[in-house]
């Protein structure tokens, strides 16, 4: 597809890179020519200098043959204007980044009026991810499928777990919970396991289960399972606002203690979110953290605007307490640092956003035989987990797996049929209306046909 990206910042570049790798034709627009030049030397994209909210510039970038326009400049308003203009010229898919929490309540109205196909809000997505991580403390990452019916949970297997040195086929004897181990990451290698695969200490395992089963599973396996009850938040920016919003509406509430340096900002936060304990001070100060009781906190979330500070404060908090560390990193790719800070979960607005846009674009491309529902990148982008809805396709429907020839490195991890979750064996088959979770180390699958040989 032909894709125009307006704004060549961190997110714009991450999007350009991912979409380019997916094989799309990407044109970047930015006012700053030197940024474009840099982008064009490392990526196979075309750069056009100028203001993306001008029809002339958009035309030069090839609006006449464009399929998707993505506006990710620093300003929400410019992004909306770009989409509005482009949509008036041609009926195309438009994606805009709108991240000001003030627009949050009216976002659906705005989206409809301006004709934006998809709104991306990196900060909100990060907040969402943080909330999910807080609910499940031992997980390094959680993704949900089937509209929240099942979760895919990644965690590191500790040495004291009874799972260690067990082969997967023997697992059902020791552990009654219906849980499917779908991927193992060991020494930077991605393994799609078979029945005879043994689990070892320090494996990064990913399993698919219903949220309630996942908790039971963790209980049995001696993994932490209780949701965090209180958390330190360092940095009271947009993400903190979205955390407050989510917390307001959620059943299991978490006590947030927000430490913010800027008095004005601290004041606004305190005004808007009654359940926040807002402290105006330096989050890097050890004394302040101890005074405020970091030792007893369940989680420590550092989300200031500086990657280095976030990581350093996380390291310090790890020394001071047993809290679960969550740090925001935006400038480097999380997969490049994850393995050196194993005790911390890294959240990255850039990657979260790029993933969600890639997911959207793939869904646009998928054929009618199966609908692309969601996509998650696993193990630093080396594997992908995808969810498809099965439509009436004679090549796939009602054929048992033993007779389907799948590509190597592709695993159908779960079938969600109504309220049942099936872990597929040779005699099972996919039926119309099923949701199917597929894990693959081969990239670029758009529909279920792509997994067949």
């Amino acid at each position, binding site marked *: 597809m032909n894709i125009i990206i307006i704004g060549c910042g961190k997110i714009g570049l991450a999007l350009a890179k991912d979409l380019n790798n997916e094989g799309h*034709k990407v044109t970047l627009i930015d006012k700053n020519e030197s940024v474009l030049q840099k982008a064009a*030397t*490392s*990526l*196979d*994209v075309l750069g056009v200098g100028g203001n993306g909210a001008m029809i002339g510039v958009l035309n030069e970038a*090839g609006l006449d043959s464009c399929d998707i326009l993505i506006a990710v400049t620093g300003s929400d308003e410019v992004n909306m204007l770009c989409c509005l203009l482009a949509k008036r010229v041609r009926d195309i898919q438009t994606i805009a980044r709108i991240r000001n929490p003030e627009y949050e309540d009216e976002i659906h109205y705005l989206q409809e009026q301006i004709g934006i196909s998809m709104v991306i809000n990196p900060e909100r997505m990060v907040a969402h991810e943080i909330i999910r991580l807080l609910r499940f403390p031992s997980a390094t990452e959680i993704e949900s499928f089937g509209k929240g019916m099942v979760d895919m949970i990644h965690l590191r297997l500790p040495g004291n777990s009874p799972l260690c040195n067990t082969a997967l086929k023997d697992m059902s004897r020791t552990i009654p919970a219906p849980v499917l181990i779908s991927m193992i990451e060991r020494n930077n290698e991605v393994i799609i396991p078979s029945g005879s695969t043994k689990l070892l200490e320090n494996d990064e395992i990913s399993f698919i289960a219903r949220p309630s089963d996942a908790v039971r599973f963790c209980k049995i396996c001696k993994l932490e399972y209780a949701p965090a009850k209180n958390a330190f938040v360092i940095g009271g920016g947009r993400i903190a606002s979205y955390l407050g919003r989510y917390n307001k509406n959620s059943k299991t509430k978490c006590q947030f203690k927000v430490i913010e340096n800027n008095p004005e900002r601290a004041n606004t936060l305190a005004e808007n979110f009654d359940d926040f304990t807002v402290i105006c001070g330096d989050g890097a100060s050890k004394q302040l953290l101890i005074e405020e009781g970091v030792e007893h906190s369940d989680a420590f979330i550092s989300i200031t605007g500086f990657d280095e500070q976030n990581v350093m404060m996380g390291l310090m908090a790890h020394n001071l307490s047993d809290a679960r560390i969550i740090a925001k990193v935006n400038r480097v790719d999380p997969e490049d640092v994850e393995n050196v800070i194993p005790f911390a979960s890294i959240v990255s607005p850039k990657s979260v956003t790029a993933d969600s846009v890639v997911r959207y674009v793939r869904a646009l491309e998928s054929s009618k035989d199966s609908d692309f529902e969601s996509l998650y990148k696993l193990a630093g982008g080396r594997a992908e987990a995808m969810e498809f809805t099965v439509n009436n396709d004679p090549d796939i429907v009602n054929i048992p797996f033993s007779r389907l020839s799948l590509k190597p490195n592709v695993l159908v991890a779960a079938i969600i049929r109504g309220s049942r979750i099936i872990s597929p064996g040779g005699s099972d088959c996919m039926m119309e209306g099923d949701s199917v979770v597929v894990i693959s180390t081969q990239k670029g699958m758009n529909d279920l046909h792509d997994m067949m040989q």
Partner: protein
Amino acid sequence: MNFWIIAYFMGWIIEVEAISMLIPMFISIALHESDVWPWFLIIILVLAPLGFILTRKRFRRGNFYVREGYAATGLGWILLSAIGALPFFLSGRIPNYVDALFETASGFTTTGSSVLSDIEALGKGLLFWRSFTHWLGGMGVLVLILAILPMNGGYHMQLMKAESPGPSVSKLVPRVMDTAKTLYLIYIALTVTMILLYRISGMPLFDAACIGFGTAGTGGFGVRNSGMADYSRASQILITIFMYLFGVNFNFYYLLIRRKFRDAFKMEEVRVYVGIILVNIIIVTLVIWRFNYREEGLLYSLHHAAFTIGSLMSTTGFATVDFDTWPEIGRLMMVLLMFTGACAGSTGGGFKVSRLMLLFKEARKEMHMLIHPQSVRPIKQEGKVVEHSVLRSASNYLTIYLMVFIAAFVLISIEGHDFITNFTAVAATLNNIGPGLSMVGATQNFGFFSVGSKLVLTFCMLAGRLELLPMLMLLYPKTWTKHY
């Protein structure tokens, strides 16, 4: 330096060259040139498996950055010439390997300088191969490979930058592969049209194809000892037109295809190119009409002035008349045109019109700054502000160009030929023209130079075609260190 990936690209170059040798081999077989075609066959049988091995995935490892791009381009072109010379040498039609290398490098770099006095003696198979190297070299072998070979990331754009002429190489469409494909499609379409028109104007098909390749690549190898003089007036006029057309920036044709006629005709470089041509044609026509062709008439003068100017400015190097016999002012203007060269992004060589425009604008700015020392005056080209780095590289290009020119000039002067011969020999090879003046004039050849001088001139041709840096980089020791 990542040698694996360089070997991988060498493999592709070998493969492409092996495949392109098939056509001349079939021509040779058809004409029963029994001392030529077995050698083509042997070379193909050796090259094809070698290329096949090198293009396996195991060689495509590691990262590919700017320096690998430049080194692969420089080495690739040397390899291309070295292999391309083998049929001439092995068949014994050019008994000396350095002569054969000079001839092939001259072909691939679209120079058109020859060491042969009797080219018809080569036989049609080799003549076809000689002309076909022009066509391959014109748009570039690496660009061809980029058009075929899907690649990830953006660093392979460096290959295209290193191989395509011009101060700032830009893509037409977002992906390198599509850009390369588009360029080759335009190139093929123009070439086929041209060959058909040549055929209609009365050339034999073999001549039409070979001269067509020579025109398309702005090369200059003919297939007859008499050069272009034998062909009909109509054919010569067609050749003239197509020489001018292949000197135009290919972006122009892309804009025409996209039906952006206004943008196309607004292109500053194309306008200046046309301007220079018109002014030169008028002056030279009048001069040679007055001094040389009084009896033949004004139209005759116009025809040959247009042909010669097109030939030199597009850096093709065909000749209908011996312009060495023209008066001093005419000869001088021809030498100056050799340096001007064609548009950036065309198949022509030389200094490039757009680069000269930049230098001229910089000079004007320098004077403007003396009058208004505080003034802010960005340099614009094609309606856009030119980045400082582009300006800097244009100025530095001039410096490097002069240094290479002087070095080569000194080296071949050791041999003791006259000043004009040496000067124009370097000018004709470094700018990829073909003929010079005096002993290397349009009716002469480069055969009399010693082996050393021929190698120097071969280097000049390759350096000129690749715009100096990829070749000079090969001489820079730090290029070859494994780390840093």
